[in-house]
């Protein structure tokens, strides 16, 4: 251990509409804070190096890879994780579209895919197929392939757009 560090901070932020305070190291990965401290295990760790997008969450309206965000940089932010998509026990239309189009197989990429798609539709409610592919380019899927996922996002956009 170096520099007499080991000093933890009280981190305040809002996740899925709920204000939380977590005691953690400032350099802890946001991914680990979500999963280990807040038990929001919907967010997955894939590669742990920003390549696969499985850990993607929406932070202050922008898509980020939570494995690359040090906890201190989440101070005061509004976060949305995959747990924040469904409401009142009902899946969001985007999730319904993934189900309908078979846009998931093993499921490990799905939370990240959903968050990237969610963030895209927030920025651009009626994206072209090209825009969907660009927005999802940082999310890797190793089983179902991309066609059904892209189709699911297109369907959600068609059905709901901004309402999601």
């Amino acid at each position, binding site marked *: *251990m170096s*520099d007499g*560090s080991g000093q933890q901070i009280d981190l305040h932020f809002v996740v899925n509409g709920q204000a939380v305070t977590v005691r953690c190291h400032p350099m802890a990965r946001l991914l680990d804070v979500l999963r280990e401290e807040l038990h929001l295990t919907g967010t997955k760790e894939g590669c742990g190096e*920003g390549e696969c997008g499985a850990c993607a969450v929406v932070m202050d309206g922008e*898509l*980020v890879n939570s494995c690359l965000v*040090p906890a201190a940089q989440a101070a005061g932010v509004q976060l949305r994780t995959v747990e924040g998509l469904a409401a009142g026990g009902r899946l969001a239309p985007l999730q319904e579209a993934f189900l309908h189009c078979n846009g998931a197989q093993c499921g490990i990429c799905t939370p990240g895919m959903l968050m990237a798609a969610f963030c895209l539709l927030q920025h651009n409610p009626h994206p072209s197929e090209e825009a969907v592919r*660009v927005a999802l*380019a*940082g999310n890797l899927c190793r089983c179902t392939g991309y066609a059904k996922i892209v189709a699911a996002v297109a369907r959600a956009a068609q059905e709901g757009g901004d309402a999601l």
Partner: protein
Amino acid sequence: MRFDVAAYKLRTPQSVQEALAWMAAEPGALRPLAGGTDLMVLLAAGKLPGGQFVNLWPLRELRTIEVTSDSVTLGALTTYSDVQAHPVLQQEFPMLVEAARQTGGWAIQNRGTLGGNIGNASPAADSPPALLCYDAELELRSAQGSRWLPYHGFHTGYRQTLLRPDEIIARLRLPRRRGQRLHCYRKVGPRQAQAISKVCFAGCADLEDGRLVSVRIALGGVAPTVVRCPETEHILAAATSPAALDEAAARASLSRQMAPIDDIRSTARYRRRVAENLLGQFVAVLRLHPGWATP
């Protein structure tokens, strides 16, 4: 987990001044951390040396884009997404926009910064070749004050720069040019998105009164640093007509200015060949330019 998070101290300053005061008090003890897209990768891999870091990300004063009639000045925290969204950059500095578009995926582009890309000093970084072609200048700031230097020459060796231990990269300035400019940017990696470059080529040229002026060529991934290639620039700039562009001489000179290696991403031979072919594409684009004087 391959890292012990307690080995790192990340301090969040209230202002740039406070950050610089901390860095002046303990020169070399604090490393700047911006969007984390490089350093957090090293952290998770267990390859980031422990110690103190200064959290620059919240300092909004470093995330501005100012446009004057002569230049565009970008705060070091300008992200790749910010670059892509800016109309003046789209219009006048398309290679920088293209580099931003081709770096990582959306989530990386929202967090990766120009200052970080420069400071991390990877020879395979994508924005530096464009910045070299656009004659970027850097503002380095410390508690003592600020100094501006040309970006060309900032990288002095593999992962080595002119940045002092008490300094941060604060801003970048791009001079605006009038007239017709031709831009040619191409990144070659294993995949269209989310891949690190094997080779990255940037070239631009102005045609004024039917003559080529200020040719710029820069490469990533072919030497211990990103490189500008003045010898090749001179060869091309000497041409007075499309037919006079000496591609063979230009290719030979480019080869002399590279020192590619074999590594996990590619081989020296492949990099050399691809870099020369990308130069060939640039020459072809130059030949087709409608601005040449008619003989």
